[in-house]
């Protein structure tokens, strides 16, 4: 067999495998969206869920998903940023402490999310008496998110050529100034992309939240924005069932007559949201890159 034939066969196999992957994904998407979207209506998106009657919506769950995402990002982003910058720019790669640090991050990133959830349940919900709450959930999500986020930011920083660091230092910048004024801005577009993709993952996370932010959603009062009131959307200490948890719950113990439709609709909404996250990751990354590189001076 000559190389031309081998080449053709190899390419054929690769095409076949790629087509298979695309087909499976497309089938999944079409089935979820096909079954779910017909049940998604404006009413479905803006009304409270109901336990025993049909016609309930997912407004609280949808809001909870976003709220948890934002709170957990507020906690995890600064930590991830700090540790990624330390690891990539300042740490001595040969030190043993760093090796331990790195493997800790790796272990943490492969920890099953249900374990993170149970850990959060034992420590925050019970031990620290935080109860099923937004805060417990956000901290559990931080554990789940932190290693992935740190990795992705570290990779973004590592992708900046070393020459840029030398050039910064040769201009008389200190190491921190080089990191802050040259390396970090150059890495921002890819960091933003990584953060938004991580947000998509967190948005769809259920297992880590089952036992931390809880499986019940108090009906939120959209006119009460005092974070200290128990039915205020902003309250950090209230239980907050998210969309992903809602899907799980409706399927396992849903008592409403239209449980199948609610679950299908919620799944479709979840998929669409994650899709939007992915698209906006690309969009914001590109936009920031263009904005940054087109300059501010003139």
């Amino acid at each position, binding site marked *: 067999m000559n190389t031309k034939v081998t080449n053709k066969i190899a390419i054929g196999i690769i095409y076949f495998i790629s087509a298979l992957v695309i087909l499976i994904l497309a089938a999944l998407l079409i089935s979820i969206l096909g079954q779910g979207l017909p049940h998604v209506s404006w009413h479905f998106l803006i009304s409270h869920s109901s336990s025993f009657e049909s016609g309930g919506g997912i407004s609280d769950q949808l809001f909870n998903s976003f709220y948890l995402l934002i709170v957990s990002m507020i906690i995890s982003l600064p930590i991830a940023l700090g540790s990624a910058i330390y690891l990539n720019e300042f740490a001595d790669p040969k030190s043993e402490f760093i090796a331990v640090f790195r493997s800790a991050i790796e272990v943490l990133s492969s920890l099953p999310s249900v374990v993170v959830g149970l850990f959060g349940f034992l420590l925050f919900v019970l031990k620290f008496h935080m109860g099923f709450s937004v805060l417990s959930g956000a901290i559990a999500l931080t554990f789940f998110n932190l290693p992935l986020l740190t990795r992705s930011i570290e990779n973004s920083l590592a992708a900046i050529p070393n020459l*840029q660091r030398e050039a*910064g230092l040769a201009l008389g910048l200190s190491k921190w100034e080089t990191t802050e004024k040259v390396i970090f*801005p150059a890495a921002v577009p890819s960091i933003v992309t990584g953060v938004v993709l991580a947000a998509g993952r967190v948005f769809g996370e259920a297992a880590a939240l089952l036992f931390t932010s809880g499986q019940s959603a108090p009906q939120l009062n959209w006119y009460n924005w005092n974070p200290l009131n128990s039915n205020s959307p902003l309250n950090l200490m209230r239980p907050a069932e998210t969309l992903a948890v809602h899907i799980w719950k409706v399927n396992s113990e849903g008592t409403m007559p239209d449980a199948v439709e609610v679950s299908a609709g919620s799944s479709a909404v979840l998929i669409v949201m994650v899709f939007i996250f992915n698209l906006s990751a690309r969009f914001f990354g590109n936009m920031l890159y263009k904005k940054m*590189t087109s*300059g*501010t001076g003139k």
Partner: protein
Amino acid sequence: MAEKENYLLTTKNVNLFYGKKQALFDINLSFPKNGITALIGPSGSGKTTYLRSLNRMHDLTPGVKVEGKFLFHNNDIYSDNFDLVDLRKRIGMVFQQPTPFPFSVYDNVAFGLRLGKKISKHQLDEDVEKALRQAGVWNEVKDRLGANALGLSGGQQQRVSVARVLATKPDILLLDEPTSALDPISSRVVEDSLLDLKKEYCLIIVTHNMQQAARISQTTAFFNDGRLIEVGKTREIFLNPKEEETQDYVSGKFG
């Protein structure tokens, strides 16, 4: 020694170690206030290592030990009270690869200026233009100062990198094979810019390209195996070297 006073930078008995391995042996070399000094020699001869010791770039690499005297305006740049930031502003460096930051051309050149004390927009504009003119790239980029420097050609990028260093008004410009990543035509343009600069600045250039050394430098220093073999007027080094090793290298017998 009346001549000594004309030197801007004098290095004496420079020894440099990478861990236990000695890379430079007893280098004595001085550089005048203006003009171009070329450092030539085969790969691994220590010429780049020596160049990087002149603005303390080795400080960044763990395990490098530098010995000897480096007198710049009669102060030792390796002494504890010498401000490193100030040093690198006064002894600027241009690298083998162009190193524009991913900002606009204007921001690249203004970068070093903005680090220091506050300066007015008007002054900044003037300084940026002056630096770009000195680097011989003003006419090509004046209409797209706001465009990303990464979009320029390699030769333009390298001259913008030169302008960025010039903007901070250094006394000495270290150039580490500044044209080796460029095509011959761009190299020529960069060389022309350097020839203009030599009237005002002390340029020290490491080059593999012997024609380049012969074309632009007044003084040439030949390195081999971490030793300074010979230094003299460029004409002398190329046409009438004193050492056999130099003769062999410039005539292409090794290297």
